[in-house]
C-alpha cells in the first residue's frame, strides 16, 4: 500500500458464525484496503460463502465486528450493506431478462413506487461509468439476449452506479469462457486504479496469481494463511488450503484386481441448463469392480458428466459404450435397460417424486418391478420395497409414507437400495453423501464398496477429498470440462489433487 495512513476500507474482526453447532466461520479476521484486490481461496464448504453473506447482510454473525472505513457498522440486510458502499456480484445474476441494462438499473435507483423514472439521467451516468471503467456493454438490448459475460458486466455496472467501493465478486470467472476473463480483469484493474477495493473469490490459481494483490486462504471456517501474491507460489497456496489434515487411510481397502471394461466414453461434450458448454471432450473408462472417484471444483462439469453418463442429459458430441456396445445417446431408457444405475445429487425432486408414497418411488428408474399380466403388481411392489427398506435400514413408518417426509439420510438409503437392487453394471453417484450425518455417510460408502465387490463399476462424484481417497481405486480430476489427471489414491497426495483441480500442473 502506498498510503498506509489511510483507514482500511473494510475490516472484519473475529467474525464467527455457527450453524447447528458447527462453526462455519471461526473468528475470522480480514482486511481490505483501497485500491487492492484481495483474493479469497478455499475449498467448497471452507466458509467463503458464509463470510460473504455476513458482509452482505444476509446472515448475522454470532460474534465479531465489521468496520467500514474505520467505523463499526451493523449490517443486517443487503440494503444496509449497500448503504455502507458494499456491493456483491452473485454467481446467479439478479437481472430481469426482458429489461435492458438501463431499465434494470432504473429499478434499483427508483425512489417510491410513484416517483418518475428518469431513464435519461440514469443512462448518462451509466455512459460516464462505462467510459471511466472501460466497460463495453450494450445498455439498450434486453438483458436476456446478451451473453453471460455481458450480463456480468451489467451487474458490475449496477454496483458502480450505486456508488459501491467495496466490491465482492463471487467466483466471477466460473461462468466465463477463458477468453472472456481478460476483459473482466481489465475492469477490475480500472476499479482498483480508482481506489475501490475488490474481494475476488475463485478456485482458479492462475487467475488469483494474475489479478490479486494479496491472498487469504480459508479452510474449515478459519483463515489458514495470508500472503502477498508477489511472494506466493502455487505450492505454498495449496499447502495452506489443504491444511495439515492428511486423510485417514486406515479404512483403506486393498484394491481388487480390475475386471473388464464396463463403461467407456470419449469426446463427450455437453451443455448445462444455461446453454454454456461445460463438457469439452471427456475421456473416461470404468472397469467392473472398481470405484472411480471424480474430483473437481464445483462447476467444472461434474453435474453434466454424471447426467450424460446416466443418459438423463443428452451429450452434444461424443460416444458412450457399455460392455463394448455403443449407446444411443438420444434414448434415456436405453441406459436404464443397459443396467446403469444413477444416484442424482438432488434426492428430493430428481431421485424421488416428493409427493409419491415410497412404494411408488420404488418404481422410478426401475424396469424390473413385479408385474401381473403386464400390469404393475402394486401389492408385490410394496412388499419388495418394504423388504429393501428393512435391508438398508431406512427408518420410516412404512412404504406408504410420502417421500417428502423422509430425512435426507433415509431417503438416500432408499434411493441407493433401489439403484443397487439388480446389481447394476455401472452406478453413477453424484455427491451421494452430501448433507448427510457421519453415520449415514459411512453406511452409503460401505454399500458402494460392497457393490463394487459384487462387480459394479462405480463412478463417484464427490466434493469431499477424504471420501474420494478413502474408497476410490482411481481418482480422475475434472477441470473445465476435461479430465486433466488420473491418479492412484495410494500414490498421490491431497495437495497434488487440489493443484490439478485448480488447473495447475503437478
Amino acid at each position, binding site marked *: 500500500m502506498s498510503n498506509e495512513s489511510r483507514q482500511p476500507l473494510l475490516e472484519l474482526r473475529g467474525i464467527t458464525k455457527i450453524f447447528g453447532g458447527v462453526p462455519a466461520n471461526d473468528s475470522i479476521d480480514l482486511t481490505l484496503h483501497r485500491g487492492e484486490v484481495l483474493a479469497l481461496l478455499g475449498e467448497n464448504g471452507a466458509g467463503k460463502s458464509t463470510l460473504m453473506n455476513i458482509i452482505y447482510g444476509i446472515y448475522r454473525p454470532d460474534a465479531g465486528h465489521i468496520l467500514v472505513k474505520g467505523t463499526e457498522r451493523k449490517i443486517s440486510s443487503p440494503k444496509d450493506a449497500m448503504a455502507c458502499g458494499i456491493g456483491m456480484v452473485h454467481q446467479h445474476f439478479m437481472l430481469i431478462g426482458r429489461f435492458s441494462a438501463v431499465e434494470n438499473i432504473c429499478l434499483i435507483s427508483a425512489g417510491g413506487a410513484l416517483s418518475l423514472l428518469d431513464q435519461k439521467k440514469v443512462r448518462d451516468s451509466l455512459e460516464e461509468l462505462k467510459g471511466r471503467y472501460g466497460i463495453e456493454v450494450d445498455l439498450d438490448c434486453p438483458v436476456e439476449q446478451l451473453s453471460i459475460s455481458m450480463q456480468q458486466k451489467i451487474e458490475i455496472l449496477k454496483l458502480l452506479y450505486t456508488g459501491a467501493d467495496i466490491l465482492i465478486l463471487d467466483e466471477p470467472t466460473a461462468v466465463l469462457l477463458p477468453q472472456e476473463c481478460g476483459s473482466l480483469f481489465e475492469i477490475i484493474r480500472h476499479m482498483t486504479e480508482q481506489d475501490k477495493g475488490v474481494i475476488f473469490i475463485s478456485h482458479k490459481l492462475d487467475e488469483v496469481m494474475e489479478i490479486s494483490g494479496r491472498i487469504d486462504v480459508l479452510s474449515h471456517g478459519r483463515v489458514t494463511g495470508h500472503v502477498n501474491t508477489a511472494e506466493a507460489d502455487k505450492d505454498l497456496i495449496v499447502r495452506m488450503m489443504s491444511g495439515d489434515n492428511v486423510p485417514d487411510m486406515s479404512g483403506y481397502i486393498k484394491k481388487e484386481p480390475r475386471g473388464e471394461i464396463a463403461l467407456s466414453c470419449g469426446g463427450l461434450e455437453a451443455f448445462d441448463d444455461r446453454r454454456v458448454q461445460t463438457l469439452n471432450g471427456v475421456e473416461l473408462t470404468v472397469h467392473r469392480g472398481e470405484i472411480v472417484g471424480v474430483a473437481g471444483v464445483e462447476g467444472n462439469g461434474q453435474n453434466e458428466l454424471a447426467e450424460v453418463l*446416466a*443418459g438423463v442429459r443428452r451429450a452434444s458430441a461424443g460416444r458412450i459404450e457399455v460392455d463394448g456396445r455403443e449407446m444411443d445417446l438420444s434414448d*434415456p431408457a436405453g441406459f436404464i435397460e443397459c443396467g446403469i444405475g444413477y444416484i442424482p445429487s*438432488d434426492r428430493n425432486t430428481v431421485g424421488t*417424486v416428493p409427493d*409419491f408414497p415410497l412404494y411408488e418411488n420404488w*418404481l422410478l428408474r426401475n424396469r424390473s418391478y413385479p408385474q401381473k399380466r403386464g*400390469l404393475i403388481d402394486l401389492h408385490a411392489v410394496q412388499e419388495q420395497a418394504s423388504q429393501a427398506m428393512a435391508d438398508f435400514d431406512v427408518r420410516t413408518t412404512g412404504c406408504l409414507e410420502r417421500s*417428502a417426509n423422509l430425512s435426507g439420510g433415509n431417503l438416500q438409503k432408499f434411493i441407493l437400495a433401489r439403484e443397487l437392487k439388480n446389481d447394476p453394471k455401472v452406478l453413477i453417484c453424484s455427491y451421494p453423501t452430501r448433507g448427510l450425518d457421519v453415520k449415514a455417510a459411512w453406511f452409503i460408502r460401505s454399500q458402494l464398496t460392497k457393490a463394487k465387490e459384487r462387480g459394479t463399476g462405480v463412478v463417484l462424484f464427490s466434493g469431499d477429498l477424504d471420501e474420494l481417497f478413502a474408497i476410490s481405486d482411481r481418482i480422475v480430476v475434472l477441470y473445465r470440462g476435461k479430465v486433466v489427471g488420473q491418479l492412484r489414491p495410494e500414490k498421490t497426495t491431497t495437495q497434488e489433487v487440489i493443484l490439478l483441480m485448480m488447473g495447475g500442473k503437478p
Partner: protein
Amino acid sequence: MSVLTEMSASFQKSVTHYRGASGIRKAAILLLSVVAAMLIGSLLILAVGADPLEAYYYMLLRPLSSITSIGEVAMYFTPLLLVGLGVSVTFHAKLSNLGGEGQMLFGALGMTVVGVPPVGSFLGIWSLPVGILLGILMGALWAAVAGFFRVRFNASEIVVTLMLNYIAEQFISYIVFYPLRSGAEPQSAKIACALPKIYQGSRINWGVVVALILAAVYGVMIRRTRFGYHLRALGGSERAAEYSGVRKKRYYFLAMLISGAFCGLAGAIQISGNTMRLMEGVAGDVGFSGIVVAMLGSMNPVGVVLAALFMALLSAGSVTMQVKTGIPASFTSVLEALIVLFILLGMAVSAAQSKRKKVNTAR
C-alpha cells in the same frame, strides 16, 4: 370462461401440495365443497323467493324417479364422464386441457360426416363404429395441435386449448350452415345409425356402458401401467420423470392426444346417442363442465364417475326445477362455479396446514 383458465392454473398450483393429503382428507374437502356451495346456493334460492329444499329435490332426486328421467340423466352423464376422464389425464401430468369443448365438436363432426348421406347410407350399420373411431381421431388431432405447440414452442396449453375452442365453434357453424346443411335449419341431416338403446322406453343407450368401461380402463392405465405411472411422475416432478428415462415432450404430447381422444369420443356419442345430427352448440358446454368433473372427482376413477353423476343430475334436473320453482336453469352454472371455488379454497387451506405441520415437525 377466462375464470376457468385462472381456476385451472391455480388448481395446478395447489394440487401439488394437495396430493400429499390423505384420501380421507381429500374426500372430506370435496364433500365439504359441495355442501358449502349448496348452502350458499340456498341463500340465492331464498333471495328469489323459492324453497331451497324443493329446488334441490328437483335437481338431485327427481331425475332418478323414473326410468325415462334416468335416461335423460344418462344423456348428460356419458359425455361429462368422458370429458372428465380426458381432462384428468392431463391433470395428472400437470397439464390442463381446457379445450374439451372444441375437441367434442370435432368428435361430433367425425361421427356426422360418416353418418349422414351419402357416406352414411353407403356404410349402413358400419357408419356407427367408423364414425366413433373417426370422432376419437379428430378429437385427438384437435388436442394434438395444442400438444404440438406446447412441446415445440413451450406455448401454454391452457391458452391454446381455450382458443382452439373458438376456432372449432366457428368452423362447426360454417359446416352446418353450408356444406352439411340439410333443410331450412342450420343443421346436418339425421345420421343413419344410432347407438343401440339399453332399454326401450328410455333414451339410455350403450354409450353409458362404454363410458363406464373406459373409466375402469383409465383407472388401470393411471395406476397400473408404466405409462400412467410416468405420467404422474411427470406431474409430480419433471426432473424425476426424466431421471426415470421419460422423454417428457413425448409424454406431454401423448397426454394431450389421449385427452383429446376421450373428448372426441364424447362428441361422437353426443351425436350418435343423443342429438342424431350436428348443429351449433352440440357440445353444450360439457367440455367446460368436464373440467369441474375432473376436479371434483379428484382425478380418481370412482371419484370422476360420482362427480359426473352429480353434475349430470344438476343438468338434467335444472329444467324441471325451472318449470316447477321458477329458478332459472342457469342456476346450475352458479352452483358449478361455487363448487370449484370451494374446492380451490379447501385445497389451499389444506396445503397451508400441511406446510405448517411440516415446519412444526421440523422444529
